[in-house]
């Protein structure tokens, strides 16, 4: 459904997206994971024909994103990070606007409007101004408007930013429902836990695609042992461990410290030394499964680049 070949976009000297290639199958939920500024939004904007690539090409639903972009826009749904509804229009007026723009009318419109209202949980609130809705409802209404015309492909650019975890969970259920009904979904996020919902993940950093696989395989491919350490002095222990023998990385992970070990024996003695500096005994060093965050941080380090905030 989506095929990008060496997709590149430069802004002056800055390369926002650097030779990115990937394909997305029909019905797949494909995730773009990466920090802000990694090039996720720029890639999506090129795929929906809002931005011309500097080099490379892409086809979406069999259409070239540059040459056929007018036709392309009838086949895709797009929701930006601002979930841009018209705040001064009511719920119903927003849906009617998109009905007009996408050429959905008559019986089909009535049916789709009811579907959107049900999906957003806004039945009975049709006359409410969109600006006054809670963020979670706004977001679902925006999604409903974006798929009013039942596009085969849906692009979501950080659709859950700023929404509370419960609403975020509900939103991912919606994405899942759409995907089961056959919609291909390309979604970007910087929330690691959301990335787990995706069928496949593309990890992006500094404009480059650094890994592409299912979340499970990405985690499995992570070859370094990771240990979780309980300590009452986590920040100082992390400091003491930086650059110590056998330690590849040490970072706060909630209240614990996650340690990536190169040589396990050397690492253990380094940990003991760091703890004794604070009068603590080594109580437990538990081996844990790599999270996507560990995978991501590890890959970025291997690339020789820092993680950008």
């Amino acid at each position: 459904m989506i095929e990008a070949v060496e997709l590149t976009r430069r802004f002056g000297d800055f390369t926002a997206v650097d030779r990115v290639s990937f394909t997305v199958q029909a019905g797949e939920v494909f995730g773009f994971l990466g920090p802000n500024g990694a090039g996720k939004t720029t890639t999506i904007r090129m795929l929906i024909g809002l931005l011309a690539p500097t080099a490379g090409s892409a086809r979406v639903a069999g259409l070239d994103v540059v040459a056929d972009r007018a036709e392309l826009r009838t086949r895709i749904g797009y929701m930006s990070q601002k979930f841009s509804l018209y705040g001064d229009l009511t719920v119903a007026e927003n849906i009617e606007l998109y009905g007009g723009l996408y050429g959905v009318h008559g019986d089909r419109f009535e049916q789709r409007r009811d579907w959107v209202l049900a999906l957003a949980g806004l039945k009975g609130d049709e006359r409410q101004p969109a600006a006054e809705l809670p963020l979670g409802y706004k977001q679902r209404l925006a999604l409903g408007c974006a798929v009013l015309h039942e596009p085969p492909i849906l692009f979501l650019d950080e659709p859950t930013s700023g929404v509370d975890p419960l609403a975020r969970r509900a939103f991912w259920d919606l994405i899942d429902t759409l995907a089961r009904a056959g919609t291909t979904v390309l979604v970007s996020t910087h929330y690691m836990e959301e990335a787990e919902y995706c069928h496949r993940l593309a990890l992006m950093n500094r404009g480059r695609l650094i890994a592409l696989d299912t979340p499970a395989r990405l985690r499995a491919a992570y070859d370094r042992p990771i240990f979780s350490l309980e300590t009452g002095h986590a920040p100082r222990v992390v400091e003491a461990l930086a650059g110590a023998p056998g330690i590849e990385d040490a970072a706060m992970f909630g209240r614990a410290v996650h340690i990536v070990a190169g040589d396990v024996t050397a690492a253990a003695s380094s940990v003991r030394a760091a703890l004794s500096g604070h009068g603590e005994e080594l109580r437990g060093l538990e081996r844990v499964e790599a999270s996507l965050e560990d995978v991501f941080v590890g890959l970025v380090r291997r690339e020789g680049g820092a993680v950008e905030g």
Partner: protein
Amino acid sequence: MDLVRLWAIARKEWIQLRRDRRSMILAFVLPIFLLLFFGYAISWDIDDIPLAVLDQDRSRASRELVDALTAGGLFHVAEYLDRYDAADEPIRAGSVRAVVVIPPGFQRDLASGGPAPVQLLLDGADANTATIALSYADAIIAQHSQQVLLQGRRIPDLIQADTRVWYNPTLESRNMIVPSLIAVIMSIIAAMLTALTIAREWERGTMEQLAATPVHRLEVVLGKLLPYVLIGILDVTGATIAGILVFGVPFRGSVLLLGGMTLLFLVGALGVGLFISAALRSQVLAMQVAMVATYLPALLLSGFLFDIASMPAVLRAVTTIVPARYFVTVTRGIFLKGVGVEALWAQGLSMVAFATIGLGLAALAFRKRIAR
């Protein structure tokens, strides 16, 4: 071009406009306020000029001269002075525009048939009023001296100028101001109204959302234009009715022609606002640029305040790109002269060109922004 999509945009814009109090004030309150304000405040008719009198002769003849000066209502005596060295004080204070000094012996000189000089001191700080006051006073004094000379007998004039003023027989400046004012006000309002509309969508991120739908940029531009054209037509209708009923301005031409010309003008003026809005993307900036780009030219270069024919060549050239200039000619022509297409086709064509360029620029600026 898809009319369904165009209509969806127009409908949305209309709903937003209706709910936005700031736009509603701009659209309906401001034009009427400006019309009443300027209509009453601006007048180029000079009469009732305050005059100070220093009568050193205190005779019947001197009193008759003062009566002659004030009889027509062009002058009124605001002050009587008694010392010559105090004559400049009321002018300096601004309480009078002119002082007439009648020296001692005025009646005697008059009776002996010799020249009887009087002195007229004028406030040259306002050259315009001074010139007019001087010509009024000259004419009145010449007429008065003829009457004194003939002592009531009449002789026929050798050459008699039979003057008639067409279109505005009473030469009332208000008749000229109000129709032009409608044109000037509409060019300001039009640009300010639309200056916000596209910039607002950029600021709120809705423009990006629109751009991802199948809607074509020309559909957006025209769809946004439609509600504002309707408002513009309502404004011009209201201002025309107010001009006729409140200010008593004659309306001699065709309502249909005025409507058609208004439509042409509005499309251009609104298009310029849209262009500014699309090019700048910021509501505040777009509003300021729209004000400067339309307000001053419409006021100064449209022929409303200053006659274009007497401007220096450079400024005259600049006025050709001021759309208000054409519309001022049109409204004056239709209101006062009752002229038709045969006299106004050139203005009409200029406004068509202007509308095309305005809309074209708006659509172009819009596309450039999307591609970035």
